[in-house]
């Protein structure tokens, strides 16, 4: 794993989440390789990027944390993680985290990476299978639940 590719995501997630929702995230310092399919915590959003290299970012969030994030961003309570504005809030969180990290990668390494619009889905235990890419996860906790940041690149720098 090339740390230069993954570190910008680590730097972005806690700051962006705090700024958007006021929620503090405790993050692990290292990325762990994912060797099996990922079993979703509850709400997942995937965003792809491509340029001189290709990759994607997955944010996987427990239902309780997703509901709290959406409540703080939108300013109203939600009862289900499947509500449209909850999914939209997680999707936008992913877009901004990825945008922040990709901006840093582009400025450091001239990769000309561009984001595709994110996709988001809800379903605890859903298997997320992304073949052909080696991915690495950083596990985060908060007062309201867990979050997994999983990033993958097709190749190194």
């Amino acid at each position: 794993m090339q740390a230069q590719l993954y570190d910008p995501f680590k730097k972005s997630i806690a700051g962006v989440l705090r700024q958007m929702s006021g929620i503090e995230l405790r993050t692990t310092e290292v990325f762990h390789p994912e060797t099996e399919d990922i079993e979703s915590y509850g709400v997942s959003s995937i965003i792809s990027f491509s340029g001189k290299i290709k990759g994607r970012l997955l944010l996987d969030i427990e239902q309780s944390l997703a509901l709290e994030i959406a409540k703080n961003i939108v300013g109203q309570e939600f009862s289900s993680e499947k509500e449209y504005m909850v999914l939209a809030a997680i999707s936008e969180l992913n877009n901004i985290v990825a945008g922040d990290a990709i901006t840093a990668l582009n400025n450091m390494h001239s990769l000309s990476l561009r984001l595709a619009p994110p996709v988001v889905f809800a379903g605890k235990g859903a298997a997320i299978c992304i073949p052909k890419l080696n991915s690495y996860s950083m596990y985060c906790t908060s007062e309201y639940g867990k979050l997994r940041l999983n990033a993958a690149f097709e190749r190194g720098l």
Partner: protein
Amino acid sequence: MIKRILIVDDSPIIHNLLRKTLENNGYEVCGDAKNGREGVELFGQLNPDLVFMDITMPIMDGLEAAKSIKTLRPQARIIMLSAMGDEEIMSQAKDLGIDIFLKKPFDDYKIISAIAKLV
């Protein structure tokens, strides 16, 4: 004078938050577009005083939409509001004559002070 504002962004969250900020500060959101193509069409129909434009959107991205709008009306005022903000994109936006480039996430102060710079 800036009064009527068009929002072009594929995120309902951004529409919701930006509309609140703008309306709380006395501006009128005259239109909401979900992608660049809709944004160009609504710009032609509504003739807003200012456009807030995202970059990453389906169908037509914000830079392409801004180029079309500037072709329609070279003096159109556009603020790019995007999650992306690298040197290459900023340079493209500058070449298109974009007035101001803001990075998401945003707060009320960032938005209102950006509009104030255009007045």
